[in-house]
């Protein structure tokens, strides 16, 4: 059985996901000479919005010259399933806290990490497609040029610098996962303690010998 404290940590961690339903998870910004303040979009669990109301339309207009596909919210199956995935994650977390078995905690954390990797991989794959699948009849063709936006960070593509960064929703999701890992750590704190001592006390005694 898990300790009461870890069960509480797990329950709270599961609940920490909830704010992420109500705010963007990711933000992509494009800056160009004509757009010094940038135009961009927010990715939510269930929708896509412009930083400003018409930004997505304007991104589509800018990108069509190089043959990039138009971005339309309804083309993403992810927005249909993501709320359920995170909903299930919250529910499972709470159940695991109730059940109080260590394997449940393990399962939750593992599932979470797999989903996070899967999500980022899916995001990367979309970005790859978006940047590489170019209309062969595009007006502007630059040899060997592709337009994949960065997964995280910034990247300059012709006249546009693209920035891709997690947004507040991702912070809550990340905090939730960290909480789960924290609960695991708390469960195994004695083993961790002895591991720590073995690693560091042996090191310090070696140093003493050398001195």
């Amino acid at each position, binding site marked *: 059985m898990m300790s009461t404290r870890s069960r509480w940590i797990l329950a709270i961690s599961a609940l920490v996901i909830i704010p992420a339903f109500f705010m963007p998870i990711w933000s992509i910004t494009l800056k160009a000479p004509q757009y010094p303040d940038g135009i961009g979009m927010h990715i939510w669990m269930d929708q896509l919005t412009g930083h400003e*109301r*018409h930004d997505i*339309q*304007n991104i589509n*207009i800018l990108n069509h*010259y190089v043959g990039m596909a138009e971005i339309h919210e309804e083309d993403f199956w992810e927005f249909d399933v993501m709320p359920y995935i995170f909903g299930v994650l919250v529910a499972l977390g709470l159940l695991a806290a109730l059940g109080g078995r260590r394997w449940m905690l393990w399962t939750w954390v593992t599932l979470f990490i797999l989903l996070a990797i899967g999500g980022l991989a899916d995001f990367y794959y979309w970005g790859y497609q978006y940047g590489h699948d170019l209309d062969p009849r595009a*007006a*502007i063709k630059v040899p060997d040029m592709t337009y994949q936006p960065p997964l995280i960070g910034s990247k300059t593509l012709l006249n546009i610098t693209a920035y891709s960064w997690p947004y507040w929703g991702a912070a809550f999701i990340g905090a939730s996962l960290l909480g789960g890992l924290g609960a695991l750590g708390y469960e195994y704190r004695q083993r961790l303690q002895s591991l720590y001592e073995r690693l560091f006390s042996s090191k310090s005694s070696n140093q003493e010998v050398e001195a």
Partner: protein
Amino acid sequence: MFSNSSNYLKIGVGVLAAALVALFITGCPAQQAALDDREAAQKVYKAPGEHDDLYAFLSGGYDGQVSVWGLPTARFLKQIPVFSQHPETGYGYSEETKALLESTHGFIPWDDTHHPHLSRTDGVADGRWMFVNANNTPRIARIDLTDFETKETIEIPHTAGNHGSSFVTENTEYVVGATRFSVPTPNRDVPIDQYENEFQGTITFLTVDEETGEMDLAFQILAPPFNYDLARPGHGVSHGWAFFTSYNTEMAHTMLEVGASQADKDFIVAVNWKRAEELIEEGHGEVVSAEYYHNKMDPGTGIAVSETKDSVLLLDPADTEGMIYFLPTPKSPHGVDVSPDGEYIAAGGKLATVIPVHSFSNMLAAIENEDFDEIIDGIPVLNYESVIHAEIEDPGLGPLHTEYDGQGYAYTSAYISSEIVKWSLDTFEVVDRIPSYYSIGHLMIPGGDTRSPYGQYMISMNKTTRDRHLPTGPKQNHTAQLYDISGDRMEMILDFVTIGEPHYAQAIEASIITENVKNIYDLAENTHPRMIPSSRQARVEREGENVHVYMTSIRSHFTPDNIEGIRVGDKVHFHVTNVEQDWDMVHGIGIMGATNAEILVPPGKTKTLVWEPRSEGIFPFYCTAFCSALHQEMQGYVRVSAADADVDLLYYTGDRPTE
């Protein structure tokens, strides 16, 4: 003939003598304290990309428009077409805007804009609307300052030369007008020498809707057949009154140059409009027939529609006690300018040797005491000595117009001596003077005609340019000069060239306007009946000889861009919706052989250009705005066939539809 030319000679000598006298009085311009060039440059410098502190609006005079500038740099920002067609944007050419130029005289492509005036709340400019008058065919226009576009024009009946306009009252209750030329009311066929008996002047009050800004002709006041010149509603203590200058109280109808310059004093007309409201409430006034146009743009469709009205409420001073008075004022006064507190009314007596300053409280006392010299056509003439507060000595020659800095000083332009004199509202003496180049008309201090002047700057609007800038031929554009008035001495800090002939101007702190200014027109709010929200609805429909093209523009193509089946004799209506929703992403359309103009369509708007092809052939059209890297590709073709040809209507962008 001979007597006329000797009159000219006398006037010529007189002006020359006046100029010489001016030189003696004012001293040589070189004695003016000169500001270090570098200091002056710093005062008007804004780094690239940095915004100005104020918007300034200068009337365009005979170009019929209003131009917008930034201060203190005098960067030119925009020209707003108002009473003149503007081929650059299609204003007055597009089907949506034509109605704004309609009048009882028909469609008028030109007028003369004089006095822009910002709407006010509590006697201070509120940045919502700009009113401006048409001097030639009497009208007033309203410009919306969320998009700097003209939204309304209204014709003023019983008026000829709406010069004393378009000044607004303390809370924009009214915008006023006054006729420069007296004419028979109602206008009719009479011998001109029946002027004194058959002609009348009128003063007009139009209400302004608090929410929409829409004007409505409230009432007119009949007045003797003088010329009425400028106007200012009172504010502060004089709120509820409006003042108008008159000249030609001699009632000359020919050679006014001499005939209207004989009397020592003409009149300032003081109208108690709150009293007028009471009188109307009590049933005074007569509804008389008067045809006039009222043209309004619908905010949803963006289409201006004309409405004709047929009557106006006319008040006769003979039957309306306590509403209107004359204040004797030397001599052919132009400006009638109310101090920030509303107490003083400075007159610019063009031909006077002093600046007469009336006191509002003196005026009320004189009315109370019935201190009248005479009564003209039912209008009591107050005793000059009773109402005058001060006569500013040594005011320069040809004082025209006064504004205030809110620090206790007034500034009066003097046309003949080409200078500005600064005088104290405490001592009523001239404290400083500075030249203008050349022949200043009006001047403008930001907020200098309001209850709370911004001060800091002053602009002179000059009537001749001569050698001030690189020459551009015998007709040159007018100069304006910017002065720093924040110190004890006025300092000229910039000289710039304007557009048209600015007669008057307004300025306002930029932030009041930038808060509300639009970046785009919301496509979702566009209710134009021929608007299409996306290229999927693009189509061409024939209704007899009228062919309607429902077209979209977006970077960088029109939909449709190939049109066939048009016949000679058709009237082709290009209804272009710019479906962009990005700031400043404007598309236009120009069609080969179109005899009107291009139209520019701002993002989110629908505009219509009518084209009547006269011959068979292929007619290209293209986007006239450099909208994108592929702007030069933004084009299309119309195939025009013979009037009796049997070519089916066909339209597409991309693949040609197969039958």
